[in-house]
């Protein structure tokens, strides 16, 4: 049986196309979760894709947080379900307080679309378990508000607790993110978000398939959880 992963569709989502493709390449069956529906349709994992949910005019991700589907996603996460937010999805998760911190406008005040390299900080989470080794992974970024921010004390805490999941590799921080944070994971280890696009970097013909390890980890983690009938969690360090 294939693993059914929900992809949340807000009006204005646009990397849903990439998410569908990435999930399929990783062997999963993507399922559309329309923003106005409360039902998660029995999926075993949720991916919140990139884009400009509701136009993102006010502040990236803020309006999406109040949509019906996000209430269900929050419950799903509280039950230990795996939730991955990419780019705009990451912004939505921070606005919804499912992940710590905030994403500010890029330091350079311009949209940045280019290849970056990110390094996984941990390989023992459901989002990174199938990554071969801790080498820089190449994948695109494409965002205007990706500067990760939290105050110093919070950042210290996140680092201590192993909640920094990805950092931009040396010299490739595209947006001024504090401490080069590219992605974080919540304390209970079942919700993660990152600004770069692993779901796009899943085929060599597109320039890189380094993102596949992340998507496959997520899919497999969700499948295991479904098989076990319970959340596949890692304890925070």
């Amino acid at each position, binding site marked *: 049986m294939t693993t059914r992963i929900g992809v949340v569709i807000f*009006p*204005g989502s*646009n*990397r849903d*196309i*990439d998410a569908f*493709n*990435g999930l399929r390449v990783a062997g999963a069956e993507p399922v559309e979760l329309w923003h106005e529906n409360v039902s998660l349709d029995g999926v075993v994992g949720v991916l919140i894709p*990139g*884009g*400009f949910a*509701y*136009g*993102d*005019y006010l502040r990236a991700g803020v309006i999406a947080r109040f949509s019906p589907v996000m209430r269900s996603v929050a419950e799903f996460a509280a039950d230990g379900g795996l939730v991955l937010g990419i780019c705009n999805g990451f912004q939505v998760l921070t606005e919804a307080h499912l992940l710590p911190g905030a994403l500010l406008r890029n330091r*350079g005040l*311009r*949209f*940045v*679309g*280019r290849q970056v390299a990110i390094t996984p900080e941990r390989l023992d989470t459901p989002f990174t378990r199938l990554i071969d080794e801790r080498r820089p992974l190449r994948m*695109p970024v*494409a965002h*205007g508000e990706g500067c990760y921010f939290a105050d110093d004390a919070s950042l210290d805490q996140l680092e201590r607790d192993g909640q920094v999941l990805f950092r931009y590799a040396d010299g490739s921080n595209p947006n001024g993110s504090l401490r080069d944070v590219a992605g974080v994971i919540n304390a209970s280890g079942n919700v993660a978000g990152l600004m770069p*696009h692993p*779901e*796009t970097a*899943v*085929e060599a*013909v*597109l*320039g890189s398939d380094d993102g596949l390890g992340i998507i496959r980890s997520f899919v497999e983690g969700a499948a295991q959880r479904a098989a076990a009938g319970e959340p596949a969690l890692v304890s925070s360090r």
Partner: protein
Amino acid sequence: MTLAEPPVAQDPREEPLHRRLGVTDDELDAIRARLGGRDPNELELAMFSVMWSEHCSYKSSRPLLRTLPAGGDGDDALLAGPGENAGVVSIGDGLAVAFKIESHNHPSAVEPYQGAATGVGGILRDIFTMGARPIAVLDALRFGDPSSARTRHLVDGVVRGVGGYGNCVGVPTVGGELVFDPSYEGNPLVNVMAIGLLEERLLTRAAAPGPGNLVVLFGSTTGRDGIGGASVLASATFDDDDPSKRPSVQVGDPFAEKLLIEASLELIENGLVEGLQDLGAGGITCATSETADRGNTGMRIDLAAIPRREPGMAPYEVMISESQERMLAVVRPERRDDVRAVCERWGLPFAVIGTVAGDGDIAIVEAGHEIARIPAAALTSDAIVHERVAAPPLRRRPAPAPGIPDELTGRLPERGMDPGAVLLALLGSANLASRHPVFEQYDSTVQANTVAGPGHGAAIVRIKGTTKALVASTDANEAVGALDPWLGAAMSVAEATRNVSITGARPLGVTNCLNFGDPTRPDAFWQLAEAVRGLGDACRALGLPVTGGNVSLYNESPAGRIAPTPEIGVVGLLGDVALRVGPAFAEEGDTVLLVGEATPGLAGSAYAALAGVAAEDGPPALDLAIEARTQAFAREAAARELLASAQDVSGGGLAVALGEAAIWGANDQGIGARLRLPVANSPAVDLFGESPSRLVVSCRPRRAPAVALLARQHGLAVEELGAVGGERLVIELGGAGATGAAEERGSRVADALDVPIRELRHAWETGLNRALGWENA
């Protein structure tokens, strides 16, 4: 919509209304003739004035455009050609590609961010109106001096606008152009090309068939935006002359556009619409009359049913408003609720604004009274056509720049200048340096199809579920066009198609955007006529249809007229994306070959812009038959998997082509080459000249004989230059042309071009930021 007409009156109050609207006395007579002899009322006159503006009617260019090859010569793959919102070409597997290029020059000059943003929005609507999902955008931009404050303001705003819109709607910007030339100082060019993919069976026409069908408007509400854009309405004040009440700047809402894309495609996929038309220039007037005319029907429009954003709008304002992000659909009465449901799902306002009629007229009704009635054809297919006068300019060549000693410049490198220094200067120049500071502000990867984005030659976008890919390029050679508009246009077609062919793809068709000056001036009209002739000649020689395009005239400012700029967009099909050939050197030891021959003529080249050009020099010649064979060779060599790389010689000449192949080489690590170039003309011409129909290819050494043989079989000259490898680009100059120069050379000058790749890369990567003062950005 462009400010398409020349200003008319000193004191608008003293002019009759039609002139204030940009309608000439002759045109008013022609309008009367189409109304059975009666005078148009104010509303009708306003409708005519937008529809008969140059932008909507093509009244000056239509006779010229008829001469272009429009497919049909056995080209059954063309599903929709000029006259439709976009050209559509079949690509097999039941799929088709829709593509078109369009200008938004004048709005971008006024408000660069919104002008460019709405330019992207407009061309995307042309694509999804046909039933195609937009999959790629290319932006071709032209500005004046990059060091001027005004240019910097425009570049910044335009680039942000293209990105702000394209990034949000989720269509990758995969390529384009950025050119600086003094002629654009007062009049920048913003041309945007969009490409869409559709299932052939979903091809949708912008026609209004079936009297009794409903006319539905969905998307944004109608406000006062853009009023005054179409003709000279800005100076026509009707009753109210408070300009603050008539904002003419259109503001784009990419979020609304994204919803419009999804809703429109859903309507089409579910078979809910009989016809679909986007609202662009000319607003509701244009959309209703064009669809009715194409459907051989008419329409009865209920003015009060049109949802508005502001109170107190006059009928003419509603009818010609260019509010963005709106669509017109023709719907069977029984499907009305289904259509409404789709619009509601996407949160889009929906209104039935009228019905299709059988009488051929556009009738506007307000509170039960008919307030306007015009034959649909009079506004569109039967709009006025002007036969303009063309006259070549008296002086066709510019004088040499002051202070440039004529006889020296053509041979500059050997007059004490190191060719390596010239190459560094060219690679670091505003027009040839890397465009990454611009295209990194774009999302070039969304949709997970981008195989080759902006940066290294033509863009390649794969088609999911197939082995195929689309390859696209935009090009225009304004510098040669300024000297010879026929040649400039033909060279533009040659370069754009060549960029596509060298990847291995077969060009499918040509779209174009003709950016020219005031057509009522005979020398400007001559430029347009010559360029259209060049465009047609080149397309015929290459066996390609012109699938559509756009004309932007009156590109003049107090600073002068722009250089003739026929912007060419080409889409090609690559049968197997795995066989694509890139422009970069691949690995150490590969053999480098030059296919094609340099011909004399430096005028119009980047080298000439840098070093000046001898007064008697002209641009290089173009032999279209050789060009066709060169491209056929490139495609065959790619299909037979002979090549490791293929790069064409264009801006900056052979040296720049080699420099780029080296900088981009070995997966962007950079890899050098050690070459020997037999100089046939002079070092300047052979190294930096831009004569067309030349390729730099590389291959594994054992394949070199096959490559050379194939080139000869295509009747092309071919020369083995040397091998890839090392960390420097070394080009030794040999042959007859070099010998003569050597005598004058003296001892100070290097025998060869010899530069570390690291230095080439540095010049190339930092050049644009330096030119624009963006270093610290």
